[in-house]
């Protein structure tokens, strides 16, 4: 069913939505959008629209799941039925369960889990509209929601994908590029500490291409990181203004 109706990269070297190969999609981030959750964040990355909410730390129920020496991080990645073109069943699919685990493991290194034993943090990621690389966008939003909830963190986690389409290594794949392209490399990164917390690869790349893709994704993460910080500070700008 490979329907290569249109070329992913035109003669000028621009992609379907007019981006250069190393360009991110336009990003809009807002922190603290939900009043009932302890922390929350909303992000739009191109056509991706993702909401993340955090509860906790709190006592864990059922109690036997609590760990005596560390906090338990729980995460649910969920796609709304209207997030894709064909209605998606709201029941958690195999893919969603896997992504929940992937996101959890990508944000866990940022949290001081050993500070608050016997407690739990719940992270909820709701994809309202999906357009490729949702796992990366989700990680970006989830780490902001955690910071908004006042949970001590080593660093914010920024995530971005890179991939290969028509022999070119490109940054921040969207849905069509992900489906038709040859490879997809999602990377989550803590820029201040220089730590990669998620690295996956789907498709075929040579060693050199892989290295190039990872480096490109890390550059993308750094750009997203700057936007994350800005969004986090924007919530408290009013506080600063009063101060001056």
């Amino acid at each position: 069913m490979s329907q290569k109706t249109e070329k992913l990269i035109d003669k000028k070297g621009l992609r379907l939505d007019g981006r250069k190969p190393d360009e991110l999609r336009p990003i809009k981030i807002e922190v603290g959008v939900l009043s009932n959750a302890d922390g929350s964040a909303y992000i739009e990355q191109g056509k991706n629209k993702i909401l993340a909410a955090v509860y906790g730390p709190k006592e864990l129920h059922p109690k036997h799941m609590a760990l005596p020496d560390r906090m338990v991080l729980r995460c649910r990645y969920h796609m709304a039925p209207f997030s894709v073109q064909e209605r998606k069943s709201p029941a958690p699919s195999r893919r969603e369960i896997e992504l929940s685990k992937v996101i959890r493991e990508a944000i866990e290194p940022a949290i001081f889990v050993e500070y608050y034993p016997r407690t739990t943090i719940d992270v909820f990621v709701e994809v309202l509209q999906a357009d490729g690389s949702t796992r990366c966008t989700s990680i970006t939003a989830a780490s902001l929601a955690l910071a908004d909830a006042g949970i001590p963190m080593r660093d914010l986690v920024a995530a971005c994908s890179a991939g290969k389409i028509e022999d070119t290594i490109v940054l921040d794949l969207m849905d069509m590029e992900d489906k038709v392209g040859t490879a997809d490399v999602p990377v989550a990164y803590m820029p201040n500490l220089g730590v990669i917390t998620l690295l996956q690869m789907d498709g075929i790349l040579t060693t050199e291409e892989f290295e190039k893709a990872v480096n490109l994704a890390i550059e993308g993460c750094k750009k997203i990181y700057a936007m994350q910080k800005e969004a986090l500070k924007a919530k408290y700008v009013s506080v600063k203004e009063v101060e001056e």
Partner: protein
Amino acid sequence: MPTFFERRQLVTPGDLLAEGDYVAGENTFKEDDKIYATRVGLVDYEDKKVSVVALRAFYIPRVGDTVIGTVVDVGFSGWTVDINSPYLALLRASDVLNRPFKPQKNDLTEVLDVGDLVVAKIVSYDRTHNPQLSVNEPGLGKITRGQIVKVTPTKIPRVIGKKGSMISMIKQETGCHIILGHNGLILITGKSLEDEELAMMAIHKIEEESHTTGLTDRIFQMIKREKEKRELVKNESKN
């Protein structure tokens, strides 16, 4: 040994605050001589100590803290109390009753029931055990009247002020008795509802403007203005 921010500048988790011979204070962590922030807040450099005053945090119990909590469960030998923290606190019946009691005979709900508010002190807490409370001191025990105000736990020091200047001023001006729970809950008891409302207003203003200087004076002025306004209304209604 540089520092990378001005005092009172807004920082986010992961920001490099200082490098070299510094001590990591609250809401920071040290790795290879570098000190990073762990929460959103305002930096503070004090001699060799680098810390962050968090803008958003939750309450972690400390032995000796006074807290205000809600009873959420009544057990055979005591109560479980929600103290606005990740950990639930325990209050033992023997501590409250101060006399021998038998679970078969005494009904604990007569003393404290679910939903009751208590002022208590934390007597023990560590990583492996939930905090234990005591009400065996004057001023502690069940709350029977007054108003409760909730603020972010990190802002309690601001409500107290330098050497208690802020809180003593509010107490004096409004004539209310105020108990500050370190967990972010504040109990106000006054002679009349009006006095209590005035104190509540002052505390809300402090929470909103907690990072400004000369706040004590402005709160003082605000209370004075409010009092005058109310005096006017009263006189008018008399006439």
